């Protein structure tokens, strides 16, 4: 599956080029919500106004290909609209109706396919697009990851004691939790074989250690990576860069590191974007794929913002400075509530 277009509105800027610049220079700003650090999109107004601005920016940056199908992943859908009015009636509107409104603002009239699988929602949408294109049921699919700030999600994560009181520190010895963020990202995909970025294989696994925990053996993570490599026709030594899940969580990072070490032995250069973009939950997959591929197009693997001190127990150190990208395939890794693990291989073809 080829990625023919991409766009991102995030805490790292109102367009993908701004996000790339910030990823490569390390410049970033952290806001706060109810005392928690938060990666906020630089947009003014209430939830609805900010949503509308973000969609308008995306629509301009990446006009929808004609006849696109529409897949969307989110974990919060229209819940921010309920926060806004301090009323709950907005939830009576189905997420698919809300998503149809988003599709319309993004220039797509096809019925939305809505995926709600917590932090891998956007990747579930991408996976479904891959299947739809492979079966020739669509010629183009617009995949959207959408997550905007809302008190419900924030307080839910706070209740689970998953948030850090300081900015995200992926794989750092001092990491102590997540920093939420917001983003809306678009990936346009087709089944073309031509030049550009291709998702050549993806794999999933279920971690059965518990709804919010992670198997420290790393087996589910390794299983997802191996499946992705197998479907891509690749071996571990082909991979030149890993986009980590890298949420700064004391719980998931041992599992992530163990899984990567099990597959790679010596892990290729690896980077996390969650200290720049925040943990954008259902949007994180498309958002981080858009940013990763755009950075690599510039020839660079960015440094991991927020990382300072290695944790010897993890046996994995993310990038501490930007590195030249050698053109080798990239591995993308993501984890989510309910034990969802997703891995994908991205390759740029000339």
């Amino acid at each position, binding site marked *: 599956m080829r990625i023919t277009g991409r766009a991102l509105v995030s805490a790292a800027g109102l367009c993908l080029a701004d996000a790339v610049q910030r990823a490569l220079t390390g410049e970033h700003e952290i806001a706060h919500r109810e005392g928690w650090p938060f990666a906020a999109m630089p947009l003014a107004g209430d939830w609805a106004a900010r949503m509308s601005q973000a969609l308008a920016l995306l629509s301009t940056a990446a006009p929808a290909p004609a006849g696109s199908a529409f897949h969307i992943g989110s974990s919060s859908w229209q819940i921010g609209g309920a926060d806004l009015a301090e009323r709950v009636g907005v939830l*009576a509107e189905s997420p698919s109706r809300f998503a149809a409104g988003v599709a319309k603002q993004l220039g797509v009239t096809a019925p939305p396919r809505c995926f709600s699988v917590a932090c891998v929602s956007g990747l*579930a949408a991408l996976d479904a697009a891959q*299947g739809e294109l*492979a079966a020739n*049921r669509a010629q183009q699919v617009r995949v959207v990851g959408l997550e905007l700030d809302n008190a419900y999600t924030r307080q839910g994560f706070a209740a689970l004691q998953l948030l850090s009181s300081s900015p995200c520190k992926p794989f750092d010895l001092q990491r102590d939790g997540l920093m939420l963020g917001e983003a809306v990202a678009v990936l346009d995909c087709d089944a073309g074989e031509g030049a550009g970025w291709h998702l050549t294989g993806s794999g999933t696994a279920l971690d059965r250690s518990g709804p919010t925990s992670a198997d420290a053996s790393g087996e589910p993570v390794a299983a997802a990576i191996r499946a992705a490599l197998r*479907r891509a026709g690749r071996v571990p030594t082909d991979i030149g860069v890993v986009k980590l899940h890298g949420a700064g969580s004391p719980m998931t990072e041992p599992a992530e590191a163990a899984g990567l070490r099990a597959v790679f032995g010596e892990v290729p250069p690896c980077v996390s974007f969650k200290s720049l973009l925040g943990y954008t939950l259902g949007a994180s997959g498309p958002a981080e794929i858009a940013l990763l591929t755009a950075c690599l197009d510039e020839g660079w693997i960015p440094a991991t913002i927020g990382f300072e001190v290695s944790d010897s127990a993890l046996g994995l150190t993310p990038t501490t400075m930007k590195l030249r990208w050698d053109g080798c395939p990239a591995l993308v890794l993501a984890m989510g509530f309910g034990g969802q693990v997703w891995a994908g291989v991205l390759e740029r073809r000339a």
Partner: protein
Amino acid sequence: MSRIVQQCRNVIDEAEARARLRDRLGAVPRRLGGWTELALAGALSIEVPLGSVGLILVSALGPVNETLGALQDVFDGAPMMPFGFMQSQPAVSLSVMAAQWPQIARATCMLGDDDAVRYAMQMADAWAREGVRYTLVGQIDADAGRSDWVLVAGDEN
């Protein structure tokens, strides 16, 4: 094209859902929330085959009642309860169901109506090409007490 190999339609209230869980599992698993209890109670009507099995939950509103309950806490200024938030996450429901059937190899949740169910059947074909021969597809509507399930054999071709 995927083929339905088992099918069951269930309209069950909360008490019956819990009775079914108690009957089949020996006890009602704790703190699932009504939406997950309904989904699981319905799915237990299906004889899930061995081998690699997929799971797709489809629902128009998802666990909306659980979300409303937790959201009301936010509006009332009360601290949100962790289990209240968890019960509003379909991904957690998927993990609860996967815990019942170790053969479930992949799982996802779609928010939508009958059209999403038809789409889920097409996804079962794509999953079959990746080695997931059977997929459980459930359509859950908590307000109507509906927990309808099919087991489909995906078409690998």
